[in-house]
C-alpha cells in the first residue's frame, strides 16, 4: 500500500470549534464538529486525521470511517464513555482512557448516574468507589461533583444492614487515612531525596532510596534483639548484681577509645558479644520464668524469618512492577516516551539530560546504519578470549580466598600490636577494592556488545568475590573454633572489625575519589573531569555491609544498632558529597531493572548468611565457658529438647512432628513446589507466544481494513463517475482504477463487490 512519508493534511480550525476539510478534487466541504469536550467553546479542538485524510482520498470514505465501530467507541467516550476494566479482580467499571470528560453539571450528573445505576453499586465499598474516582481522567472539580452526587444518592438508598456496612467501610477508610498520615510524617529524608533527584535524576536517587529501605529493614531487627535479648540481660545483671558471662581475667577492664575500633577489651564484658549472655532461666515474678536460651535462639529465628518475608515480598513486587517480560524490542519507543525524567529541577541536570538523550539516539542511529557483523574468526577469537578471562577470574577468586585463609592462620598465633587483628579486615577491603578494577580491565578485553551485559557480568563477578571471601572466613572461624576459649565472641569481634573497617574505608574512598578529585579538577589539573557517582559500586557495597550485619547479629547482638548508625552517617556523607562534588552522568541508568537485580543479590546473600549461621547453630560445638549455650553439644539442642518435652506431654504431637520431619513428606513438598514452579513457567511461556500471535493477527487485521477501505473507496469513485456521466453508461471495470490491488483474488473480489453495489444502488453507501 503506497503511503506518503511526508504527512499531508489541510484543515483550518475556525472560531466555532469545528473545522472544515476541503477536498481538492471534489470541492466539497466536510464538516466535522468533533468536540473532544475540553470545555465549551474552545477554539481549535480535535481534528480527525483519518486514514482518508492521510491518503488524500475522498470524503465518502472519511464519513464511512467515522461510522466504524472502533471509532464509535471514542465518540462515545467523548461524551460519556465507559470501558470495562478489571480492577482488583472484580469487574469495576472505570472511566479509563485519555479522553477528558466534559465538564459542567450535566456531564457529572450523567457519570454519577452511571455509577449509581450500576447493578453492583450497593455492594461497592467506599474504598472501591474512591478508587474509581481517583482513576477517572477528568478534572478534580468534576470528580468532587461526582463524589457529592454519588454519596448523596448512596445515603438515600440504604437499609439498616447496608448502613451498618457503610459505616464500617467509612471507619475503615478513616483508619487507613490516619495510618497514611502517620507514615507521611515519619518519612525520612524527604527534602534530601527531592534535592538529589532534582539534580541527578532517578538513577542516583535509587541508591539513596535503597539505603533508606535497608535502614528501615534493620529497625525491626534491632528492636527485636533489643527487646528480647539485650534488655532482659541488662535487667538481669541489674537486679542480680552478678557479672555473668565469661571473663578472661577477674579484673574489669577500663574503657579506652581504642576499643571502638577493635572491639576487644572493655567490650568483651558487655552485651555487645554473645559470650556475655547468661544461660540461666530468670525468675521474673512468682510463676513466670524467662528462659534466656530459648529467647536468644528464637529471636534469631524470628528476625531471620521477618527479613525473609520482607525480602521475598519486595522481590516479588519489584519483579512484577518492573521486570515485566515483553518482547524488549522497543528501544526507540522507550527513548522517546520514557526519555525525560520529570523529577529533574536543576538547569545543569536538564542540559546534561538533553545531551544524553541526543547522544543515545545518535548512537542508535549510527548503530543501525552500519550493522556490525563479526566474521567467524572474530567470533571464535572472542569466545576463546572469554573462556580465558573467566578462567583468570576463577583463579583470582581462588587465590584471594587462599590469601585470606593464610593471613587468618598466621595472625592467629602472632601478637603484633594492631596488625594481628586488623590484617584480615584490611586484606579483605583491599581485595574488594583492587580486584574489581582488574575485572574492569578484563571486561574491556572481552568486548561485550551491550554495556548492559558488561555491567551485569561485572556485578556478578564482584559479588562472587565477596561471597567467596566471606565463605572462606566463616569456614575458618567454624573450623578452628575448638582452639579458642570463647570462639563466638571472637567471631563477633571479627565481624565487628570488618564492619568498622568497611565503614572507615567507605568514608575514605568518598573523600578521596570525590572530594579530592573535585579539588584537583577545579584547581590543579584542568583536563580531569568532575567525578560521577558510581551507583553500581555503591549499592553493592551497601549489600555487602547488610550481609555482614545478618551474618554477625547472632554473635554480636548489638551489631544491628551499629549498622543503623553506620547507614545514617553514610547517607549524610554521601548526600553532601554527591551534591558538592559530583556531576550527573551522561549515560542513563535503568533504575527499575537494576532495582530488581540488586534485590535479587541481596536475597542471595541473605540466604547465604542464613545458611552460614544455621550451620553454626546446628553443627558447631558451643564453647564451654561462655554464652547462653555453654556446656551443650550443639546450640540447636535446646529445640530438640523442647520437642522431646512436648512429646512426653502430648503424645499426639509426636505423630505430627514425626510425619512432618520424615523424608517422604519433605520430598513430597519439594516435588510439589517444583511442579508448581514448572507449571507456572509453562503458562507464562504460553502467554508470551499468545501475545506474539495476537500482535501478528492485529497487524493483519489492520491490513484487511486498509484493503477493504481501498476497495470501498474505489467503488465509490466508480459510482460517482457513473453519476457524473450518463446513468445509462455501463458500469466501468473497477480494475482500471485499482492501482495497488494486483492479486487476482483481489480483483475478483472487487468485481463482485462492485456488481453487488451497482445492483443494490448507491443510496446504501
Amino acid at each position, binding site marked *: 500500500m503506497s503511503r506518503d*512519508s511526508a*504527512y499531508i493534511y489541510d484543515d483550518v480550525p475556525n472560531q466555532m470549534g469545528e473545522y472544515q476539510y476541503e477536498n481538492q478534487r471534489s470541492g466539497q466541504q466536510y464538516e466535522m464538529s468533533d468536540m*473532544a469536550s*475540553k*470545555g465549551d467553546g*474552545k477554539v481549535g479542538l*480535535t*481534528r480527525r*486525521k483519518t486514514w482518508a485524510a492521510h491518503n488524500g482520498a475522498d470524503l465518502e470514505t472519511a464519513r464511512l470511517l467515522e461510522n466504524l465501530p472502533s471509532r464509535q467507541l*471514542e465518540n462515545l467516550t467523548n461524551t460519556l464513555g465507559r470501558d470495562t476494566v478489571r480492577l482488583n479482580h472484580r469487574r469495576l467499571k472505570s472511566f479509563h*482512557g*485519555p*479522553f477528558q470528560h466534559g465538564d459542567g453539571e450535566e456531564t457529572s450528573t450523567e457519570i454519577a448516574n452511571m455509577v449509581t445505576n450500576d447493578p453492583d453499586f450497593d455492594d461497592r465499598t467506599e474504598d472501591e468507589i474512591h478508587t474509581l*474516582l*481517583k*482513576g477517572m*481522567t477528568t*478534572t*478534580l*472539580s468534576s*470528580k468532587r461533583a461526582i*463524589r457529592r452526587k454519588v454519596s448523596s444518592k448512596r445515603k438515600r438508598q440504604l437499609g439498616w444492614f447496608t448502613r451498618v456496612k457503610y459505616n464500617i467501610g467509612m471507619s475503615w477508610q478513616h483508619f487507613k*487515612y490516619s495510618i497514611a*498520615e502517620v507514615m*507521611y*510524617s515519619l518519612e525520612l529524608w524527604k527534602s534530601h*531525596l527531592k534535592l538529589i*533527584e*532534582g539534580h541527578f535524576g*532517578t538513577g542516583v536517587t535509587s541508591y539513596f532510596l535503597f539505603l533508606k529501605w535497608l535502614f528501615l529493614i534493620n529497625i525491626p531487627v534491632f528492636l527485636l534483639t533489643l527487646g528480647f535479648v539485650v534488655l532482659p540481660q541488662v535487667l538481669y545483671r541489674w537486679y542480680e548484681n552478678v557479672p555473668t558471662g565469661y571473663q578472661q581475667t577477674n579484673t574489669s577492664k577500663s574503657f579506652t577509645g581504642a576499643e571502638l575500633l577493635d572491639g576487644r577489651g572493655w567490650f568483651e564484658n558487655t552485651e555487645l558479644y554473645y559470650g556475655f549472655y547468661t544461660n540461666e532461666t530468670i525468675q521474673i515474678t512468682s510463676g513466670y520464668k524467662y528462659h534466656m536460651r530459648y529467647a536468644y535462639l528464637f529471636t534469631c529465628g524470628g528476625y531471620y524469618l521477618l527479613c525473609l518475608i520482607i525480602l521475598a515480598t519486595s522481590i516479588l513486587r519489584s519483579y512484577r512492577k*518492573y*521486570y*515485566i517480560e515483553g518482547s524488549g524490542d*522497543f528501544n*526507540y*519507543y522507550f527513548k*522517546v*516516551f*520514557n*526519555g*525525560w*525524567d*520529570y523529577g*529533574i*529541577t536543576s*538547569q545543569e*541536570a*536538564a542540559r546534561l539530560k*538533553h545531551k544524553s*538523550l*541526543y547522544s543515545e*539516539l545518535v548512537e542508535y542511529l549510527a548503530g543501525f546504519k552500519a550493522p556490525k557483523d563479526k566474521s567467524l574468526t572474530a567470533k571464535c577469537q572472542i569466545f576463546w578470549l572469554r573462556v580465558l578471562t573467566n578462567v583468570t577470574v576463577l583463579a583470582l577468586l581462588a587465590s584471594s580466598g587462599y590469601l585470606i585463609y593464610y593471613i587468618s592462620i598466621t595472625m592467629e598465633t602472632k601478637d603484633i600490636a594492631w596488625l594481628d587483628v586488623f590484617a584480615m579486615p584490611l586484606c579483605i577491603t583491599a581485595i574488594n577494592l583492587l580486584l574489581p578494577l582488574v575485572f574492569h580491565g578484563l571486561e574491556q578485553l572481552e568486548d561485550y556488545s551491550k554495556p548492559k551485559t558488561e555491567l551485569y557480568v561485572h556485578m556478578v563477578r564482584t559479588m562472587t568475590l565477596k561471597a567467596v571471601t566471606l565463605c572462606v572466613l566463616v569456614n575458618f572461624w567454624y573450623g578452628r573454633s575448638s582452639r579458642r576459649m570463647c570462639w563466638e565472641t571472637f567471631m563477633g569481634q571479627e565481624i565487628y572489625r570488618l564492619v568498622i573497617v568497611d565503614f572507615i574505608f567507605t568514608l575514605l574512598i568518598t573523600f578521596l575519589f570525590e572530594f579530592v578529585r573535585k579539588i584537583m579538577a577545579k584547581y590543579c589539573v584542568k583536563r580531569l573531569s568532575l567525578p560521577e557517582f558510581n551507583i553500581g559500586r555503591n549499592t553493592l557495597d551497601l549489600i555487602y555491609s547488610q550481609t555482614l550485619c545478618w551474618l554477625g547479629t547472632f554473635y554480636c547482638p548489638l551489631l544491628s544498632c551499629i549498622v543503623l548508625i553506620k547507614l545514617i552517617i553514610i547517607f549524610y556523607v554521601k548526600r553532601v558529597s554527591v551534591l558538592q562534588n559530583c556531576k550527573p552522568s551522561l549515560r542513563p541508568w*535503568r*533504575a*527499575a531493572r537494576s532495582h530488581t537485580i540488586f534485590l535479587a543479590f541481596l536475597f542471595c546473600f541473605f540466604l547465604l548468611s542464613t545458611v552460614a549461621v544455621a550451620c553454626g547453630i546446628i553443627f558447631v560445638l558451643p564453647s564451654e565457658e561462655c554464652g547462653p549455650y555453654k556446656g551443650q553439644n550443639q546450640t540447636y539442642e535446646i529445640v530438640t529438647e523442647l520437642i522431646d518435652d512436648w512429646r512426653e506431654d502430648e503424645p499426639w504431637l509426636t505423630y505430627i512432628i514425626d510425619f512432618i520431619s520424615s523424608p517422604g513428606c519433605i520430598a513430597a513438598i519439594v516435588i510439589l513446589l517444583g511442579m508448581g514452579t514448572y507449571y507456572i513457567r509453562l503458562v507464562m511461556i504460553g502467554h508470551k507466544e499468545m501475545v506474539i500471535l495476537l500482535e501478528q493477527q*492485529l*497487524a493483519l*487485521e489492520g*491490513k484487511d481494513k*486498509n484493503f477493504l477501505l481501498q476497495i470501498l473507496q474505489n467503488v465509490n469513485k466508480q459510482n460517482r463517475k457513473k453519476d457524473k456521466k450518463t446513468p445509462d453508461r455501463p458500469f466501468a471495470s473497477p480494475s482500471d482504477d485499482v492501482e495497488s490491488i494486483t492479486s487476482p483474488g483481489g480483483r475478483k473480489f472487487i468485481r463482485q463487490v462492485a456488481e453487488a453495489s451497482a445492483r443494490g444502488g448507491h443510496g446504501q453507501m
Partner: protein
Amino acid sequence: MGNKVTTFTDDQLEAYQDCTFFTRKEILRVFKRYQELAPDLIPFNMTGDESRKIKMPVDVIEGMAELNENPFKTRVCEVFSEDGSGNMSFDDFLDMFSVFSEAAPRDIKTAYGFRIYDFDGDNYLSRPDLEKTLTSLTQDELTAEEVAFVVDKVLEEADLDDDGMLSYIEFEHVISRAPDFLNTFHIRI
C-alpha cells in the same frame, strides 16, 4: 497555614483525600507550595469556591522549580488546566501533582502521559506529535532526516494496526512493557 485561619473545611479535605492520591498533610503542603507562587493572588481561606475559581497564570506555574526545566511544561499545564489554557486553579494544581505522585497507579499515569504527548489533542499520536516530542527532548539538535527516521522506527515498533498513528491502546500496550515509566513520570513535591 496559620493556626487561626482554616484553609479548608474538613469536608473539603475529605473530598480531596477521596479524589486524589494525597493525604491531608500532603494536600496542605501542596497548597502551601501553590500559595508561595503568588501570595497576593491566593487567599489563606479557601473554604468557599476559591479553589475552583481563582486561577494562577500559566507563566507563574511554568516558572516553578519542579516544572521549569521540563521541556513539556507548557503541554502539562494545558492538559491539567480545566479550560485548556494553562491557567490552573488549585483543584487543577492538586490534580496534577496527584497524578505525578508516587501513589498514582500506572493506568492514570499512562492516560495523562498520552494526553501530554498528544500535542494537537486529537487522541492519536501522529507524526507531528512524535516529531514535536522528539525535538523537545533533544532541543532541536537532531536533523530533520534523523527525526523522521526515529519517528519511523517508533511507529514501526508500536503501530500495530499500521495506520501511521499511535492510538491510546497501542501507546498503553508498549508503555506497560516499560519498567522505567513509573519512575520517570514522577514529580516530588
